[in-house]
């Protein structure tokens, strides 16, 4: 190995030039890599409500479902209003999420502005959550919340459009023999059904969610 290198003309100016160029390239690459890594490591993340990095381009409000009155609805029925969407289920065996209670509080705080928002609860457990079950359930939280169910295929499509994950876990000790795992986030969608923000009950008190919505409504009024 050393033979082959020693046999090369060491001080050829041409080779020296190539060597310098190569080292230069290495240095530039290293600096670029360091820069990218540093940028992505130290760049402060904006707070969640205004963050728009959750693959939002892929999230879209798109569904054909049945509401808690038994009517067939699509996203078009909510067009023109901001959508506040939560995926869940009515039957919680251990701990019940309080997300719908938070949603109800948000609507209370919004007051008159609440009519510019369509609050929706989409079940991921259509087997148990019939329109009748949903009617009683959403009614316990807020009269404006729309409960949505459908065929397993329709639910799958709706969840897919929101990029929501859910799954059924067989569990012998749970009444009915299964529990549903699902994400606990509220999605805020624009009046044309595009992704705008995601809220977590733990991080965002109802006042904050309401303020975020109000800010958007205000901007909307200014734009008009």
């Amino acid at each position, binding site marked *: 190995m050393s033979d082959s290198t020693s046999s090369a003309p060491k001080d050829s100016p041409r080779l020296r030039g190539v060597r310098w160029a190569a080292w230069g390239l290495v240095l530039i690459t290293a600096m670029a890599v360091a820069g*990218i890594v540093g940028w*992505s490591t130290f760049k402060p993340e904006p707070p969640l409500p205004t963050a728009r*990095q*959750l*693959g939002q381009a*892929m999230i879209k409000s798109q569904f054909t479902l049945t509401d808690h009155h038994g009517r067939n609805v699509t996203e078009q029925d909510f067009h023109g209003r901001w959508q506040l969407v939560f995926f869940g289920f*009515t*039957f*919680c*065996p*251990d*701990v*019940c*999420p*309080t997300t719908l*209670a*938070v949603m*109800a*509080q948000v609507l*209370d705080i919004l007051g008159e502005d609440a009519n510019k928002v369509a609050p929706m609860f989409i079940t991921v457990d259509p087997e148990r959550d019939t329109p009748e079950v949903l009617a009683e*359930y959403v*009614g*316990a*939280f*807020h009269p404006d919340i729309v409960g949505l169910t459908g065929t397993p295929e329709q639910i799958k499509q709706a969840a897919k459009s929101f*990029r*929501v*994950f*859910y*799954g059924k*876990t067989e569990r012998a*000790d*749970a*009444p009915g023999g299964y*529990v*549903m*795992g*699902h*994400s*606990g*986030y509220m999605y805020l969608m624009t009046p044309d059904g595009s992704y705008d923000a995601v809220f977590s*009950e*733990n991080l965002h*008190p*109802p006042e904050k969610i309401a303020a975020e919505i109000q800010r958007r409504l205000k901007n909307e009024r200014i734009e008009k």
Partner: protein
Amino acid sequence: MTVMTRRRAMTVMAAASVVLPAAVAGAAGTAKTFSLHDAPLPMSEVTFTHEDCRPGALADFRGKHVLLNIWATWCPPCREEMPTLDRLQGLLGGNDFHVLPLSIDRAGVKVVRDFYAKTGIENLKIYMDQNARVMRVLKLGGLPTTFLIDPSGQQLGRLVGPAEWDAPDLVTLFRDRIASAKNQR
């Protein structure tokens, strides 16, 4: 290019963060038992209304142990454990101990009254927090959540999820606490 990769990474992270709490929520066992904190913790002030709409507060119960249970009629595990809380109040309720079931039902006192009647709740009183303010005050993530409060108003323990509150081991634990508080006086 890097922005694309970064965004893709964010999506994967977002997906993971969605799946993780789901797994926890789905896999949580029913056999969780109530246990005490290593040391008492401070407790935020909790207020409510009594069945007759009079305002009340957790502070009104200083001097006795309080088992504060946050619940709602729309919460199946809450409904399920309610008879065990009722029996516990029957066993230990009085000058030293009080079970305080605080309902966050928006629909108000009527649905709670109906539930008590239907379930045959005899020993528990009705406490309402219709605006669910307690959820923020105590930073609750789900229902039911139950706190054991000592006579000075400090938090001795907390359980998220249901329990069999009149099971012998828990009754013994509560009796021990009551006895040791009395000895300290």
